[in-house]
């Protein structure tokens, strides 16, 4: 009996000791743990990249370019090759958005050089497609370029390609009139799951691409529904320019009633006006006038006239500035 009581006492004693030692060990572990050393230039570069991406979402291109340029400097200081090539790529994307074609091409070439030297095949492919897209847009795609050179799996459901590469590949195929390939790639993107903002925006772009494809093939009902899907994603992520494009496309489709088309075109017009995109405004206005023919409203005509005057002046101004720059 005594032995049993002594054992139980020892047990309690040991249990208390165990609890105290556990608490002490927890306390010790939770105390000031020295943070792991971190390269400040890498974190700086990452911060700048995130700032740039945030600016991109709001279409503050100049600001985004500044951030990406700083990210490039920081990544060069950190001597992180993959970060350097990423920064060059981001810079190229933004320069392309700013219509700085030469700058964008130079940046893409830097990415290609770097990724070739350091075997980063994914980034290389990304830059290669983006460069081809910009060259195609500017009408100087090298004759040696062949879409078939790209991996076939980019356009198929298999293969774990990043969505942005697939989307660019799809758009390139669309522009080069490989409609089946483009359609396949767009479909793969639309079937992706996830709630990431960039993914949703790319899904919206893929639906828009499908809508444009269907529209060019005169499958207007399908084009309408795809544009509607693009709009639904745009409303979630907030992509005003793409929203306006989708609305403009719907306004151009003759399957809808006149009032519905008018509504879409007016909505597109107001977005373009808010974005101060004169060329797109002119396109939407022209469509509206066409829709109201043979009795277009004089106010619309006047607005179109004002826009054309403004665009004319802007062109003149651009020419003057370019002449002045050349003189300098």
């Amino acid at each position, binding site marked *: 009996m005594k032995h049993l009581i002594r054992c139980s006492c020892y047990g309690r004693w040991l249990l208390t000791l165990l609890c105290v030692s556990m608490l002490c060990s927890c306390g010790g572990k*939770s105390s000031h743990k020295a943070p792991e050393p971190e390269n400040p230039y890498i974190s700086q570069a990452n911060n700048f990249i995130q700032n740039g991406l945030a600016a991109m979402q709001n279409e503050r291109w100049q600001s*985004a370019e500044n951030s990406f340029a700083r990210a490039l400097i920081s990544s060069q200081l950190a001597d992180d090759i993959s970060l350097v090539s*990423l920064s060059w790529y981001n810079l190229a994307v933004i320069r392309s958005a700013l219509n700085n074609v030469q700058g964008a091409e130079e940046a893409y070439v830097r990415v290609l050089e770097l990724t070739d030297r350091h075997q980063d095949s994914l980034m290389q492919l990304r830059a290669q497609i983006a460069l081809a897209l910009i060259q195609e847009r500017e009408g100087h795609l090298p004759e040696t370029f062949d879409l078939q050179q790209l991996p076939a799996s980019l356009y198929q459901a298999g293969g774990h390609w990043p969505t942005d590469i697939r989307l660019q590949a799809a*758009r390139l195929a669309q522009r080069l009139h490989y409609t089946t390939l483009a359609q396949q790639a767009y479909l793969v993107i639309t079937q992706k799951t996830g709630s990431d903002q960039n993914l949703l925006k*790319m899904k919206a*772009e893929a639906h*828009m691409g499908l809508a444009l494809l269907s529209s060019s093939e005169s499958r207007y009902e399908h084009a309408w529904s795809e544009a509607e899907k693009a709009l639904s994603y745009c409303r979630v992520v907030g992509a005003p320019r793409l929203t306006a494009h989708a609305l403009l496309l719907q306004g151009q489709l003759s399957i809808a009633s006149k009032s519905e088309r008018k509504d879409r075109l007016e909505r597109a017009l107001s977005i373009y006006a808010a974005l101060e995109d004169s060329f797109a405004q002119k396109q939407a206005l022209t469509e509206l006038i066409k829709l109201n023919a043979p009795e277009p409203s004089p106010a619309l005509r006047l607005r179109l006239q004002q826009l054309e005057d403004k665009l004319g002046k802007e062109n003149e101004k651009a020419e003057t500035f370019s002449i002045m720059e050349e003189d300098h």
Partner: protein
Amino acid sequence: MGEFVANVRRQVGWFVLLGMGTIVLIILAVSLQSDLFAKKFTLYFSPPSAAFFYDGQAVKFQGFTVGRINEMDLQEDGRVRITLKLLERYHPMLHQDAIIHLVRDGLIGEQTLEITSGNAKKPVVEAEQTIHYETAATIEQLLQDIKPAVENANTLLRELTELAAWLNDPTSDFRQMLSRMNAVSQDLNRENVGKLVINLAEILENLQSMTKGLKDSRVGEQLARSLQSTSEILSDLRPLTQQLAKEGPESLTRINSLINHVDLLSKSLDTVASDLSELTPELPGLARESRQAISEIQGMLKSLQGSWLLGNPPGPAQGKGNSVAPPVLDMQP
């Protein structure tokens, strides 16, 4: 039975003693961790006002808390004197010419004092010494400083546009300066604030030399006469509105476009405040503070990830895929 009771008593006694000992040990460990008994030395400083200080306010050096405010008193001569108690182990790092200034931990965070190391070539600060207090410029203060300059620049540029109608020379210094001004005004950011100030200074200098150079010619005389009267920036600049009216609609259009550029410049300045996340180390104050706060939060999150509470080691670095800029495609129908 008596032996059993004695045994139990002895064991209970041991148990209580052990518990108390553990508590004392924990208290001691915590005290040591929080530098309660650490050796400290005293420094003083005299800010113009004690409004932003309080007892126990942290003093940081290179981001580390090295001490706290111990006492604040108003001296007989009306000056504020604040006593700092700093940890002795950091004493050798603080040299003569060390400065203390107030910084904020983030945009809405607590204000802390930051002490600089001073001149490393000079001897270490002595205990009981009074060190210099410096007010750190914040973005608001900088903007306040810049705003009158920009308002003056507006006035100056309006006068300059009138001058341009007179001179009407595309290769003039004035045109070149304006094109530089326009380039700056396109997207005003942290770098451009500096450029803007430099450009303004250059414009002032060039304008002064231009007016001096013109004084010898007939036109120069007329200009010099007009330049003598009103401008705030160049006290000898006269409003040329009457002459402007004679110049006709062509010059007016040009002036309007130039004024638009100036307005753009003013608007761009307002966006500086909203671009805090992109401000650089060149601008002191709020920008640096917000960056400090961000890095501290990052550090805190990392420590939390590695702590026993979550039981998780720090996760893998953020995937590169999240940092790739999404393509900007032209999808216009």
